[in-house]
């Protein structure tokens, strides 16, 4: 009894040290943005005085507010589209009989293992041909559906009792009505999982915007901030770089703190099924 008690105190101590290693860098980052530039690299998160100079200087150089709007537009439209369009395909694959259903299912399985490196450049060429470079279209359309979402919805919808569908049909509901008025309300966990994973992915995506966007006014936050830090605009002012990183992180951290349990459960279930 005593031995196990000592063990658990030791474990708790170890866990606490590790947790500090995961949390402290963020505290240091936010602290660094509020210190005078000369003190940013000191270990303590508190400076000799409070200063918002880093934020002022950074916001004077890049239109980060514009990038926030772009990020929101792209992430919200894309996530909404993935929920609607992928659930339509998932519903058809899981609950309807039609010619070619198995073929489509197998194609979707195949696309899940297709490395993105293969289609990256050809997809960029397509955006150029469509005249979509520097537009929301290029940032959103390739992210309007997801194979992972289709497969998750299909699996989830297959568990809905057939009686419910039959009853809805007798009430005169069409397939769209059954999907959005019967299946959607019954599938909140799947909708939340897909919504969170997709939103997080596209909100944080940096590579694709860097390929299809050149105009500053069309950049999303990760791209604008990355170019600010790498492109020399930041002029080696560490405080302003951390300020940009902080402002970019706040929205997703707030969402995470509010929906924390859902975030963790979503990711756990995605890994098992993927």
């Amino acid at each position, binding site marked *: 009894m005593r031995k196990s008690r000592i063990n658990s105190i030791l*474990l*708790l101590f*170890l*866990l606490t040290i*590790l*947790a500090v*290693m*995961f*949390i402290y*860098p963020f505290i*240091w980052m936010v602290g660094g943005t509020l210190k005078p530039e000369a003190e940013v690299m000191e*270990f303590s998160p508190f400076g000799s005085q409070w200063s918002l100079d880093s934020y002022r200087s950074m916001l004077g150089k890049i239109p980060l507010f514009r990038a926030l709007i772009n990020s929101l537009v792209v992430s919200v439209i894309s996530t909404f589209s993935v929920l609607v369009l992928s659930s*339509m395909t998932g519903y*058809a694959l899981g609950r*309807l*009989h*039609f*010619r070619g259903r198995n073929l*489509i299912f197998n194609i*979707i399985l195949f*696309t899940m293992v*297709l*490395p993105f*490196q*293969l*289609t*990256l*450049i050809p997809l*960029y*060429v*397509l955006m150029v041909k469509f005249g979509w470079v520097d537009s929301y279209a290029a940032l959103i*359309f*390739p992210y309007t*559906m997801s194979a992972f979402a*289709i497969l998750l919805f299909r699996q989830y919808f297959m568990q809905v009792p057939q009686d419910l569908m039959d009853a809805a*049909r007798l009430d005169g509901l069409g*397939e769209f009505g059954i*999907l959005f008025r019967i299946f959607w309300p019954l599938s909140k966990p799947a909708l939340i999982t897909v919504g969170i994973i997709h939103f997080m992915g596209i*909100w*944080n995506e*940096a*590579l694709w915007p860097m*390929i299809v966007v050149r105009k500053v006014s069309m950049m999303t936050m*990760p791209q604008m901030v*990355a170019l600010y*830090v*790498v492109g020399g605009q930041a002029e080696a002012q560490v405080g302003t*770089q*951390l300020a940009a*990183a902080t402002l*970019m992180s706040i929205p997703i*951290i707030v969402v*995470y703190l509010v929906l924390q349990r859902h*975030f*963790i459960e979503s*990711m*756990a*279930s995605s*890994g*098992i099924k993927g």
Partner: protein
Amino acid sequence: MNSKSGKIRSGKINAGHTLVTPYYIFFTLFIAYPLIFSFVLVFHRWSIIGPLEWVGLSNFFELGGDPLFWKAILNTLIFILIHVPLQVSVALVLAAILNSKIPAKGAFRAAFFLPVVVSGVAVTILWKQIYSTNLGILNQVLHLIGIGPIPWVTDPSWAMPSIAMMATWKNIGLYVVLFLAGLQGIPKHLYDAADIDGATTVQKFFHITVPAINPVFIVVLILSTLGGFSLFIEPYVITGGGPMNSTLSGVLYIYRQAFSFFRMGYAATIGFALAAIIMTVIIIQRRFLEHEAD
């Protein structure tokens, strides 16, 4: 009755295709076309303006003798060799601890998971400063115990391992959660039965825990490997691929060839080769691990 059910069935045929129509369009434009066009691009030289110029297999010959391509592959292997074992072992230990009777489990889990949700750009900007050789807080801490200063990202032999450690820090929360889900799926009576048989903790770990989490292990291994081959923004922000190309990654090299040198055909060829390597590695991993599991 018969005619009625027949009617419903024929109705379903149309409805099925109607509902899948968005996917038909999506697949044609954003998957099938790029896939087919990648097979065209690899045989051409093209700067995106002007016509495609047929060059046969010369892109592949160039790739075979391109020291930077092989450097990128080597860098990816270094990343994976450090990242995967570190990730798996630490995540497994953390998951095992969190699966025991410990107070404030939820808070610890949430702490380890925090870096997972934050953008790679933000994390990399942060770690670029933490890793600073002369001023970084990591070397400040190590100095207290008499180590360093370590040239984390300024020395060619340290830079890629440093990025691998940073990536582990960023992703480990996800793997802790995956392992934890696997561990919680093990029925408790298995351990009770083992206790009755007098099994030791170590025996229980290798005979009950390890086999049960093997599927999770495969997922973790594959996701980590894919992560290694997808590295882009981390080296882009932290080192720009340097020093001496020691952090040049495959995707960063594609980006460079396409958008610094406007060599679309060659960039597509690099992507093609990377995809072939990725699929081979993953098939081997799956085969090997599923065989082991039997």
